[in-house]
């Protein structure tokens, strides 16, 4: 044991000395690096400050983030949905609606960092309400007003006969208790169960929301005295466009309207049938209502409406 102790001591001393030198060196070199700055160096007075703005693009799922950080050189974006980027400006497309927190970490070359976060809500914008077009003189209280073509090459601008034998319903759907004014086609103004140059047409240009769904609604009644009016009808159309000349309107009707409804119920005078014809507006939203009768006996139309389908 003594021998062992004898040998142990010097070893221990040497070891301690070496350790001390290493330690001192280590401490000394640390000091050199951190406590003896180069001559002329100065404190970083302009640390990075992160900041950005968020903007929704035309596609509500895609957002752009405008970098407004100061004194930074490197950027790291976390878009809150797992996507990241190191570009200066951020841009991200989210997979769906929800709230997301976007974090920007801005750093400079001294590796000083600054972070800034914004929470955004990705939400699908509501589709704007469709235009509810105003139909002028839709109840025919004003006779022929607002239902005429301004010109009619080879035809007549007079649209129909004014009549006091319209529907019992008012325009707002309430029961009037007795008949209201309406529009009337006769043998003379329709010239029989076909269309001819003597045919009269009710025409009104309206503006609706492009490519949206609408309903054309009106009431009609056709006489059938002695069963001699078989095949008579009231035709309601929505034409593609506005027309200054009736001839152009008829040509468009022949070429194909947006929608056509043929009412063939012969229920007799005063017994009105309601037509509700759905259609989808054209790409311009410029359409017109076009109604005529093909009949040998009197036929009536009242309460013409166009409104958005629900």
């Amino acid at each position: 044991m003594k021998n062992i102790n004898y040998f142990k001591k010097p070893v221990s001393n040497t070891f301690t000395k070496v350790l001390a030198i290493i330690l001192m060196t280590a401490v000394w070199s640390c000091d050199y690096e951190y406590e003896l700055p180069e001559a002329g160096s100065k404190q970083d007075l302009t640390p990075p400050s992160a900041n950005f703005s968020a903007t929704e693009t035309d596609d509500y799922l895609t957002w752009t983030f405008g970098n407004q950080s100061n004194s930074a050189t490197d950027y790291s974006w976390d878009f809150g949905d797992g996507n990241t980027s190191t570009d200066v400006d951020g841009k991200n497309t989210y997979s769906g609606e929800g709230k997301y927190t976007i974090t920007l970490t801005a750093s400079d070359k001294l590796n000083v960092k600054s972070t800034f976060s914004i929470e955004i809500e990705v939400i699908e914008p509501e589709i704007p309400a469709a235009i509810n077009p105003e139909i002028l003189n839709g109840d025919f209280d004003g006779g022929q007003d607002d239902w005429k073509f301004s010109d009619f090459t080879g035809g007549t601008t007079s649209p129909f006969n004014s009549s006091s034998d319209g529907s019992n319903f008012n325009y707002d759907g309430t029961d009037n208790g007795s008949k209201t004014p309406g529009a009337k086609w006769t043998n003379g103004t329709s010239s029989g169960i076909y269309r001819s140059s003597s045919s009269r047409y009710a025409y009104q240009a309206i503006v609706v929301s492009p490519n949206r769904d609408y309903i054309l609604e009106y009431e009609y009644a056709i006489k059938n005295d002695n069963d001699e009016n078989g095949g008579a009808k009231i035709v309601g159309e929505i034409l593609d466009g506005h027309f200054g000349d009736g001839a152009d309107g008829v040509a468009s009707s022949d070429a194909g309207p947006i929608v056509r409804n043929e009412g063939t119920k012969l229920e007799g005078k005063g017994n009105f049938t309601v037509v509700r014809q759905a259609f989808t507006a054209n790409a311009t939203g410029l359409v017109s209502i076009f109604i005529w009768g093909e009949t040998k006996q009197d036929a009536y139309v009242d309460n013409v409406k166009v409104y958005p389908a629900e």
Partner: protein
Amino acid sequence: MRKIKFLALLVLGGLVASCESDFLEPVPSSGITADSYYNDEQELLTGIIGMYDALQGVNDNNLRNNHAIQYEYYLTEMRSDNTRTKSQEGEAAQFEFYTVQATNGIVADYYASFYNVIFRANIILANLDVVSNADTKKAYEGEAKFIRAYAYFNLVRLFGDIPKIDRIIQPLETDIQFTRVATSEIYDFIISDLQTAVSGLDNTYKTRASKAAAQAMLAKVYLTTGGNYAEAQLLCEDIMGQGFELLDNFNDVFYNERNNEIIFAIGYESALASDSQNFSAEWMNGVGRTSGVNYVTNDVITALEASGGDRTQYSYRVDPSQTTQNQVTKYLPNGEDGGDDGKTFVNDATLAGNDWIVLRYADVLLMHVEAIMAGAAETSVASARASFQEVQDRAFPDTAPNTKAIITKDELLLERRVELAFENHRFFDLVRFGKAEQILGDFSAANGLNFTSSALLLPIPQGEINLGKGLMGQNPNY
């Protein structure tokens, strides 16, 4: 002894009494100084004219002079997707590449120019008391406030937070000179000035402030801040009832000066070095100091060809001397086309007299649509459609009436682009519509430019930052 005391007091009193400032600092009787001028209405009127002189800028190439509105296209149109330099190099090309440096001399020129305009407006406001007639006083106040608001509106949109100088300041008031004030406070200041201008002015002038000009400017401020669309709509509708109209021929708008479509323009006179402009020459091929700036991009040509109608032919042309390039033709020097090579002018093109149009009626009609749209994606309101149609019917007379059921935000932005191309609207329109990052980002990517969102604000000139000694911070990423 008592006598001596009395005498000494008398002498002292005499000394004190004679030491008034005008004794030691007499006002010179043979020259004019700032302190001795502005004694009556006539002298103040010369100060009013001085404000417009500052807006005109100096027509020369001296870097020390302020060039004001003559340099505006660099900061606006050439920073949009509408125009660029022909050579694509030098300080001027920093704008189109979105690499503007804080040391850019054109930016510093514009900044200094418009603070000089503000200074001159503040002089008028400080000396209003010399006007005895109450109506004249109100008109002068309105005029100075309109000009001040116009200068601030341009500066705040270009630089963001800026110093608010609302009176004449002295050299030692550096805290006011170099403290940046939040944009919201600047906008409140602009709105207040314009409201005063609207109430004090009438429509006597087109190259000086007018009621309609103040209303249109105020409407644009409301559209920019987005807070008051209803008021903007009313202002536009008021202007629409004041007898302005669209000229039948689009070209006449630019070459039939002070016509019925113009609401406010900066007036210039040709051949006079003191009152002419040189931007018309700079836009030609090597006619001015540059080899050609504000040249037309292919991007805007595509838009003009598709949607410009009759306006396209009057908006740009192929450069006759360099057929791969395209020039703006809305401001040809003195209305001359430059002959076969497009650069041979009878009159000195660098002393051009074309007025610079700031506000015209087509702008108001389209602002009317914008106000009704009120930040939404589209509008179908009849009065908005009517205003939009009025602008379109002039451009597309063959298909008039050009009725549209719905006007979308994108359609309105496009219509403004082709109607008001090269009139320094495009950049501000993009920002106001919230489309700048998207559209300029795509444009930049397609053309190898360096757009980032921080390019939407210009740098505060480095000279100002240095003089501010730490008071002034720079905009992000400069």
